């Protein structure tokens, strides 16, 4: 108890001046870093100091257009960084390239130089693709500044959903540089390529920035959009050079080559100078050793943020979910924005806010008017928000690459910067934080895409066939194109005449294909408090069921709104401002049925298989959780349509007889399976180097008769959608752990996961076995309740028994 008391008292010490004996010197970031490392020694499990690095430079190229030289000199650029020079030379040599350098290392010049040079000398046109509209606007502003400095007269325009109809023609016919995004290219440009004929005929460069965001499903779609783009270019006899830019990932050249279908040069050595960077790995203290419960990452993050802001440091706090952004914002606003007459110092920034609100926040950040911003991955990308000093990660972002990208947000001005990674009680976080050498030494993740995923490929073959008839012998992806075309012909949307397939349907296929997800249109959140109808936010289709059900508390800038009515068909949620002391969290059930198995591996009593599954997800209700105490103060029902998905999965089972022998109590077996699944899910994400939500997890019979879930009492329950079942009353009892590819049709995670089937079980066993807790905790088998001590067995040991059974005779 003494430890807890000390901890509570220290909540209030963050305004203390730092003792002068520390060696941090005058720099406030360095002082804070050393103070934290000293004061909270027991919580810091790892430290890293990346020393400052001087720049490496090269003179401006001799063959660079003199007007461009003048423009650069006018902007104070008298020499290039070495990577900018390397990019210039690759472009001169006509080689596709990918440039991988940190934030603020001047990567935009890598493409702007060759593009502007050829625009000035050969009327060459360029297409820039950014993943978001906000980045496009930043980019155009930057080119315009350079333009003005050298009076270059190069015309750069954005072309996206916000471009007014009467301006579009001017962009098409007069733009030298058109800045757009993959979605617009897919739906607005390629299907209308004849209107862009002049542009395509002179297209010399395609720039794809933030390439690392094009992974998974989105990346697989984008690779196909690029296939279509190159096909249209060939029609106009153009063969543009591709310049891709990426944040650090393990396989930039491989990803670029997959996206492009061509070889690329990789430029990975940054010549830009870098200020020193301090990194602290922070594990919240254990506050209940029996339950293995640690103080929350949220409480630790707010504390570090308070100290940083009080010491005048500009701070960014990353949270894992939009909900957590709102909770953190509320807590920090309660401290720093108590006086409503003063302009706010704390702001939230996340997906779902309206673009105008986001732009306003970006502007305040650049101007230095906001001292602390709380955000999700929305600010991970290169949105220009100026210089920040401290970056706090509330929870491990799930990937090593993502962690470094977020940490890169601090220290842009070549000044010392501090990053603090605060672990949550999730197993992945605890694994990372207890094995700091793993994190500090590991390479970032591979970005995987599967451009030939059948459904995605079919979508784009359809779009491509609309754009230009396919010719016999043409290639598009790795599947047999003629067979795909035959399929579409059979559907009646293509007609083969001679050696060509013509589009014969009254439709516009690109409108039916969304690159980002299977989303079917965003929901808007409408505030009806004052009798009006103000749109206050947008929610994407996939997260709508979990966030804007009737009764939900939906937060915008930490102000709570209650959802009164959800118009599912009209995609609207009507909300009213409210004053409550709780937030809501949805409960979802998943039932799953095995349809077919592709491969299986029997190993003694254990069996592991991979195959196709059909799953139905139901959001059954929600919990009301009180602020600050986080106690559960009630439940509500949710009535929403079930969501179905067909995907591929790997599952692990034990022969019923062996299970009954090892775990005679079915209740205990159930708890064991749920705990094992919890640990296996997280270990699998780590092993596969994917993000945890790329995989779904379920425990059930594989026949959609029953599934298991943790009930309100902290125990495993056997359920059907109709209600709770008695485990002992079931017939043959053969539970399975499912880890499935969380995307319809799958994007290729299940096959490598099956290959790693033993490593996953082995890793889960290690994770649980090495955990300090007594009965099980959120860091190994998932949260358990205080009363679990009286179960007569511990969930932890039950989980270990299950894993042993699954592990069988592994050498």
């Amino acid at each position, binding site marked *: 108890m003494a430890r807890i008391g000390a901890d509570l008292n220290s909540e209030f010490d963050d305004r203390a001046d730092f003792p002068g004996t520390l060696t941090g010197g005058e720099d406030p970031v360095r002082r804070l870093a050393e103070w934290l490392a000293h004061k909270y020694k027991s919580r810091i499990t790892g430290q890293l100091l990346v020393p400052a690095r001087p720049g490496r430079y090269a003179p401006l190229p001799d063959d660079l257009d003199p007007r461009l030289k003048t423009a650069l000199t006018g902007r104070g650029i008298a020499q290039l960084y070495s990577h900018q020079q390397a990019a210039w030379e690759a472009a001169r040599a006509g080689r596709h390239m990918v440039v991988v350098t940190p934030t603020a290392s001047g990567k935009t010049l890598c493409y702007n130089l060759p593009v502007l040079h050829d625009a000035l000398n050969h009327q060459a046109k360029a297409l820039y693709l950014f993943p978001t509209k906000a980045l496009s606007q930043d980019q155009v502003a930057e080119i315009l500044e350079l333009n003005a400095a050298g009076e270059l007269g190069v015309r750069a325009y954005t072309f996206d959903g916000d471009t007014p109809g009467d301006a579009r023609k001017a962009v098409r016919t007069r733009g030298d540089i058109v800045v757009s995004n993959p979605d617009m290219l897919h739906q607005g440009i390629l*299907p*209308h*390529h*004849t*209107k862009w*004929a002049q542009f395509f005929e002179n297209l010399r460069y395609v720039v794809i920035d933030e390439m690392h965001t094009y992974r998974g499903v989105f990346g697989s779609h984008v690779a196909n959009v690029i296939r279509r783009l190159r096909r249209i270019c060939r029609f106009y006899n153009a063969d543009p050079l591709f310049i891709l830019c990426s944040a650090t990932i393990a396989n930039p050249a491989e990803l670029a080559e997959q996206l492009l279908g061509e070889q690329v040069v990789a430029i990975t050595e940054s010549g830009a100078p870098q200020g020193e960077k301090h990194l602290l790995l922070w594990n919240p203290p254990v506050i209940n050793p029996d339950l293995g419960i640690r103080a929350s990452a949220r409480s630790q993050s707010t504390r570090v943020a308070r100290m940083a802001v009080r010491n005048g440091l500009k701070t960014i706090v990353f949270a894992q979910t939009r909900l957590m952004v709102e909770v953190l914002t509320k807590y920090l606003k309660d401290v720093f924005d108590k006086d409503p007459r003063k302009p706010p110092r704390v702001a939230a920034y996340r997906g779902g806010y309206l673009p105008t609100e986001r732009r306003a926040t970006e502007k305040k950040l650049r101007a230095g008017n906001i001292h602390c911003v709380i955000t999700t991955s929305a600010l991970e990308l290169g949105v220009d928000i100026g210089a920040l000093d401290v970056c706090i990660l509330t929870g491990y972002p799930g990937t090593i690459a993502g962690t470094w990208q977020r940490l890169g947000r601090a220290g842009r001005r070549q000044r010392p910067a501090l990053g603090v990674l605060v672990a949550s009680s999730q197993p992945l976080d605890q694994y990372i934080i207890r094995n700091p050498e793993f994190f500090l030494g590991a390479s970032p993740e591979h970005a995987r895409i599967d451009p030939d995923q*059948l*459904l995605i490929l*079919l979508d784009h073959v359809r779009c491509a*066939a*609309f*754009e*230009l*008839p396919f010719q016999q012998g043409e290639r598009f992806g790795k*599947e*047999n194109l003629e*067979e*795909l075309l*035959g*399929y579409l*012909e*059979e*559907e*009646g949307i293509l*007609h083969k*005449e*001679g050696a*060509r397939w*013509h*589009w*014969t*349907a*009254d*439709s*516009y*296929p690109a409108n039916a294909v969304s690159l980002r997800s*299977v989303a079917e249109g965003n929901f808007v959140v409408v505030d009806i408090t004052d009798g009006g109808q103000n749109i206050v936010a947008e929610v994407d289709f996939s997260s709508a069921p979990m966030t804007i059900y009737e009764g939900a508390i939906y937060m915008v800038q930490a102000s709570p709104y209650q959802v009164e009515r959800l118009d599912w068909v009209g995609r609207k949620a009507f909300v009213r401002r409210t004053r409550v002391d709780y937030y809501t969290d949805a409960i979802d059930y998943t039932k799953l049925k095995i*349809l*077919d198995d592709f491969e299986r591996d029997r190993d003694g009593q254990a069996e592991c298989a991979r195959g*196709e599954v*059909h799953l139905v997800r139901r959001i059954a209700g929600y919990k009301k959780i009180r602020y600050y105490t986080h106690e559960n103060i009630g439940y509500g029902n949710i009535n929403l349509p079930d969501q*179905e*998905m*067909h995907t591929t999965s790997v599952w692990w089972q034990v022969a019923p007889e062996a299970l009954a022998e090892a775990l005679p109590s079915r209740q205990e077996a159930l708890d064991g399976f749920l705990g094992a699944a919890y640990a296996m899910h997280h270990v699998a994400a780590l092993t596969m180097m994917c993000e945890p939500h790329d995989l779904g997890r379920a425990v059930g019979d594989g026949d959609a008769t029953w599934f298991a879930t943790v009930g309100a009492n902290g125990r495993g329950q056997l359920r059907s959608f109709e209600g709770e079942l008695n485990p002992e009353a079931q017939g043959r009892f053969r539970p399975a752990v499912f880890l499935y590819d969380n995307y*319809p*049709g799958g994007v290729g995670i299940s096959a490598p996961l099956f290959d790693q089937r033993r490593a996953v079980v082995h890793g889960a066993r290690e994770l649980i076995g090495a955990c300090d807790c007594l009965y099980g905790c959120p860091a190994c088998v998932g949260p358990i309740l205080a009363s679990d001590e009286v179960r007569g067995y511990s969930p932890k040991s039950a989980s270990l028994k299950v894993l042993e059974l699954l592990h069988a005779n592994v050498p």
Partner: protein
Amino acid sequence: MSLKSRLNTLRQQSGTAPASPTPPAASGQPPAPSFAERVRRLQGPFERPAAKRPARMAPEELALHLGGELLAPGVILIERRVELPAAHGGYALSTLAQGPVAYPEAEVDPAGMIFLDTETTGLAGGSGTTVFLLGLGRVEGRDLVIRQYFLSAFSGEATLLDAAGEWLNGAEGMVTYNGKRFDLPLLTTRCRLAGVRDRFVELPHLDLLYPTRRAFSSRWEDCRLVTAEQRLLRFFRENDLPGSEAPESWFSFIHFGDAARLPAVAKHNYWDILSLAALLPALSAVHDEPGAWEADILAVARAHQREGDEAKGFALLRRHRAVLDAEGLMELAALYRRGEEWSQACLIWEMLAERDHMEAVERLAKYHEHVRRDFASALRYAERLPPGPHHDRRRERLRERSSGRPAGRTPERNL
């Protein structure tokens, strides 16, 4: 599993409908598709019983079926001549030969015009939409000649566009209905894809949808071509194939050789061209005498004014004063005011003021204050205006003026 069954299963579950049901595969590795299965696949899901569907016609036979001739492989030309004395509905086509007709924006001679309308594979736009029937009309001597170019195979597209384009030689302009947004951009796209010179955009273009909307959007339930031809030409189609069925008619021909509905599509397009031709003089007459056609007189008058013929607009409003609504009357009064014909302007304002038209009341208040300097009358009108800072100031000023005190700040009584 075959590609097809893989796709079908996936698409079923992801909520998209598969092409056709596949018999469930036996567990384990399904066998490669049987020959019958492959044949069935080749035949396609839309196949109807063979007995009901006539055999695919030979090209010459198809041309005959459509009343045309085979121009080139994949292109059938249907030509018809209509003698100009003929009537189209209740409208005499002879007007086409009576010299130029006027619109606010242009004066055009129907004899030099190309009337153009297309039937397409859809309304979505973009490069996947094909023009399969291109209908053109122009006056030759005493006839209106209609030429329809029908695409019977994709391979004929370049020839079709070239042949139709050549027939434009010597024309002075083009007339369409919604061609600015639809037919012309589509032809530009088709020419670009086929690698053919786009002669269609080269001609000056009058799109009759805009004059029609101007005159009738406030009068008719819609401004579709069929509405215009019924109302203005008294032409009522019998057994017309709805335009929305045109794509499907052509698709069943292309896929299965089913030419049954093609003559109806051609007939539909033929009527479109005839109506288009007749509407050119008819709509001009509407702009000359909108009252006679129950058109929106104010909108037409404004169009004349906007295009520089203010006198004509003014004259129209004067002539139709009896049928103008309040907005039209206010516009007429404004024109009178500009010409300082105060008595005429006041007549209108007073009539409207009786109906509590507040803008008219304000006009009268201003008129009496600034022109007649009759402050008492001005105040009577101003008193009727609704409260508000602007009107309050006017009332205050007028009270002072009408009671003989100079305008300005209220004198402080106590001083």
